[in-house]
Every structure is written in C-alpha cells, then in structure tokens.
C-alpha cells in the first residue's frame, strides 16, 4: 500500500476548518456522548467479535455435547450446572475481553486520545464498565437460555428433563449470566488498575481463580469460610437450581461479587484520576 496520493490534498487547507466553524457551536462533551463513544469503540475491534463468538460457541458446543451424550452417569449433578459446563471456558473469553477494553487502551496508546477527548477521565472508565456489563450480561443470558433449550432436545425424557418455567430454572440461567458478567467486570477493573493486558490476565487467573483454591486447601476453618467470599468461590454458588454445598447463599454471592467489582472499579477510578497517562 502506497502513501496517500499527496497531490490530492484538498486545495486550500483552510477550507474545512473554517466551514465547520458555524456548525461546531453544538460540540459538547456529554456522558451520553462518552457512552456512545465506548459503544462504538467496543464494536469496531475484531477482538470483541472473536471473544464473544468464542464464548458463545464454547457454551453452546459443550452444552449440546453434554446433552447429546448423557447416559445417566452424572445424575447427581444439577441440570443447569451440567448443561452450562462450557461457561467455565467462556469465562476466560469474557474476562480477556474485559481486560482488553481497559488495559488494551494502554498497550496501544489509545488511552491518550481517549483522555484528551474526555479530560475528566472517570466517565471513560465508568462508561466502559457500564457498556461492557450490559453487553456481557445480555450475550451470556441469551446464550444460556439457547444452550439450555438446545440441550433439552436430548435430555427430554431423562431424569434431567426441565422446562424454562420449572422452579429455579430461569433464576439459575440468569444468575449464571450475572456471575460470568461480574467476574469479567472484575477482570475489566484489574485491566484498568494494572494497565497491562498480560499483567491483568495473570492477576485474574492467578489471583481470582487459582490462589483461593490453594488457600482453601489449608486446614484452617477461618480461611475456609473467608475463601467462600472470594469472587470465584462466590460465583460457584450461582447458576444452579439446587443449593451448591459449601458455598454462600446465591443472594449473598451476587452481592459479594458486585461488591468485589465495585471495590476494584473504585480503586482504579482513584488511580485513573491521579496517575499520569
């Protein structure tokens, strides 16, 4: 690709800036504008489409496989947990997407353009968090419902036959989507906090997923109880019709996850205001 034909430079360079002057009176920074900007940014990157497509495909594929190959062996596993086993994998896709939304701007330098356009800064992070939460939740919920219905094509007639209107089914599908979303929002917050894509992925996988598992192995009841309030452990009580053993109640879990996300976003907000870009 050659450089743009320089001879095509529009004749008097003054023309365009001047002509826009009259219309430009309406230019104004607004929260609505920042939300639109973040929405636009999210959908104009291939990585967004790749992460979401991979996440959806994994849940669907695993769900259908589980349903089609069910032979009664895993009768004791909750049907929704059984069907949505793929969310364990899609969680990584969504968390990486959350990290790319924030830390990706630092690795590319885009953040300098973003914060020059929005020098008050905070609305950039909060709009990112808001848009990402809405998109991740909507996509996860639709995927969960579709996967459930697809898996039920094979599960009908077995001991895992359920309908959407059965007690606790919709709640389990919804809280599963909420837990995926909130854990990914924590990842987004880590991205903003650490400003590095590999750093944030490391912190999420190491600190949120692996470390509490190791801590839980320690033979101390106090640690055992505390670990239940860690994000990934709180999330494990969600997305199940039956109450999951050794976890906090689903309502408490949702609140716990939301608090974790809020604390991390708040911490990254403070740093965003204070740090040089």
């Amino acid at each position, binding site marked *: *690709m050659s*450089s*743009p*034909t*320089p*001879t*095509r*430079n*529009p004749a*008097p*360079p*003054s*023309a*365009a*800036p*001047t*002509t*826009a*002057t009259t*219309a*430009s009176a*309406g*230019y*104004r*920074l*607004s929260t609505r*504008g*920042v939300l*639109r*900007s973040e929405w*636009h*940014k999210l959908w*104009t*990157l*291939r*990585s967004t489409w790749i992460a979401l497509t991979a996440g959806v495909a994994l849940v669907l594929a695993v769900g259908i496989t589980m349903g089609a190959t069910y032979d009664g062996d895993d009768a004791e596993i909750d049907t929704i947990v059984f069907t949505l086993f793929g969310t364990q994998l899609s969680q990584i896709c969504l968390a990486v997407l959350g990290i790319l939304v924030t830390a*990706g*701007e630092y690795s*590319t*330098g*885009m*953040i*300098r*353009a*973003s*914060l*020059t*356009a*929005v*020098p*008050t800064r905070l609305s950039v992070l909060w709009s990112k968090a808001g848009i990402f939460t809405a998109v991740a939740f909507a996509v996860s919920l639709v995927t969960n419902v579709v996967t459930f219905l697809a898996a039920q094509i094979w599960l009908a007639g077995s001991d895992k036959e359920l309908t959407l209107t059965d007690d606790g089914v919709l709640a389990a599908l919804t809280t599963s989507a909420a837990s995926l979303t909130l854990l990914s929002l924590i990842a987004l917050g880590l991205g903003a906090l650490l400003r590095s894509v590999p750093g944030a992925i490391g912190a999420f996988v190491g600190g949120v997923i692996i470390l509490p598992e190791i801590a839980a192995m320690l033979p101390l009841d106090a640690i055992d109880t505390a670990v239940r309030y860690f994000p990934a452990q709180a999330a494990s009580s969600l997305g199940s019709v039956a109450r999951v053993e050794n976890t906090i109640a689903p309502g408490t879990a949702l609140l716990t996850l939301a608090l974790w996300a809020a604390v991390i976003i708040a911490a990254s907000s403070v740093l965003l205001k*204070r740090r*040089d*870009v």
Partner: protein
Amino acid sequence: MADSIEDMIRAYGLTKHYGGKPGKKAVDDLGFEVLPGTVTGFLGPNGAGKSTTMRMLLGLDAPTRGRATIGGREYAGHPAPLHEVGALLEARSVHPGRSAFHHLMALAHTHSIPRSRVEAVLGLAGISEVARKRVKGFSLGMGQRLGIAAALLGDPATVILDEPVNGLDPEGVLWVRNLLKSLAAEGRTVLVSSHLMSEMALTADHLIIIGRGRLLADTTVERFVRESGTGTVKVVTPEAGRLAELLAAPAVHITGDTPGVLDVRGTDAEHIGRTAAAHGIPLYELTPQNASLEQAFMDLTRDSVEYVASTGAPQPEGAAA
C-alpha cells in the same frame, strides 16, 4: 471565533519531576504565553521537556508544581475540550486494530461531532482513501496525517502539535507548513514543537526555546535571527595567526578550521579590515556571513543538550588560531 486574547495558552512555573524524584526535573519552572493568530514554535533538543510540557498543557501529566491554562481555564475545565484544543501527541495514540474512520468517529461521539465533520477532516488530511483500513498498516506519515486529522476534529480554537512533520514526505511537510499558517491566519492559537530550527524558521512567527526543561528564549523568529549573533566574518589571509592575535578581545571569538581562514565573531568587517591595513597584513577575502539559524540554535542549547554524540569533535571556540 478564536480571535480574543482569551484563547491564549499560559504556563506558570510549570515543573515536573521524573518518577517523583526531585533530583531529575523534566520541566523546571517553565513560564510562557502563546498568543492567538500566530504560529509559535516550541523548540528544544531531544529530551528538553517539550512533550512533557505539552502533556501537562492537556492534563495528561499532572505538574509537580505550577499551572497551565488554555483560554483562561485548565484544559479539563472546558465544557467541550476538543473544541477548545486539538492535539497531536508525539507517541502514537491510536488503537492499531481500528480503522482511521472508526478511530475518529469514536472520538467524535464524545462531543456529539457529526459524521460529516469526521469525513471532512479525513479529506483535509488526505487520507479519505485509506480511512476504512486498519491503522495497523499505516506508514509513519499516514499515522501523522491521521493524528493531525484527529487534532482538527473538534474545530479547535487552539492547536497543539508535537513534532507534526515527523515521518512526512516533502509534500507532507509543505502541507503541514501551510496548514499551520492558515490555522493561525484564522485566528487560532498554534503551538508546534520541533527539534529543527530550520523547519521552525519557515513556519513559526514566535519561538519558545527550552533546554533541560528550562526556558532559554522567548522571542520572535526575526529577533532571534537578529540577536543570535552578529554573524561571522570570514577572513582569508596568509598571516592568520598574527591577525588573530591582533583582533583578540573579550567579546571576539575566532575559529579557524582550515589554515589561512578565520571565522571571526563579535566584531565587524570594517574593524578587521582597518586592523589588517594598520599592520600591513594582506587580506585575500573579507566576507560578512549571516549566522545560520541552526547554528544559533545549537549555540543557545549547547549547554543543555541531553545527549551529546561522543564521536563528534567539539567545535574549536575562543580566541585561538
């Protein structure tokens, strides 16, 4: 629009420490004003603190001390920052995975700037044809053009450009030169940094020169040229050594690279001619030379260059033959 004194840039005692350490100052007690309607060149050797100063003007870096205002307020205090100031930063500020059009559109949305304006600045920068391609494949020059398009997006009263001609071909350099002049002619405030004095001499009206984060000169190009040196006088004589001794005075600097040729600064051709005549020294040539702008700039910043090439022999200076 941008024709009032309200649109000027002011810096008061701007100071920035590196990594919070008081020892190393990137910018040290820098104060200046940039007026609308003219192109102001912001000059300094590499590492002088130009980019840091520009980032402080835009609120990207917080000053350790001091304050900077644009149009009477700090940048972040404006209701429409992109309409107030358009900036091109030295470091690339674009996601390479996004197309030029979508990059500008994302920025435009924040200020409710219409799509027609995005297309207008793409045309202005001469990158309409590649607007739908991902920035990843852009050359350095195309990246600069996209950065300039982004700076003009909000139809800003003030334009701040950090090394805009970097990576541009001669055609592009000429384009930037004319663009800056026309922006200033429209009454906008234009601050443009460079490490090349020769480029600034062709573009700027006013000069702010810094070195090691300190203000070295705040002047007009014209005055800088006039004051930067009285110019040198080239003297060709078979008795160079003797003439040099006779001319020696505290204000006079004589250099000589080739035998029989002297470059004399600090006095004029008349004095040299009379001195030579009084002592019977034959002169083959006596030519006043206008100081080269680049040389004057280098003289001014010599003590404050951050990185000096170790291989280059230092210029012989002082009353020596």
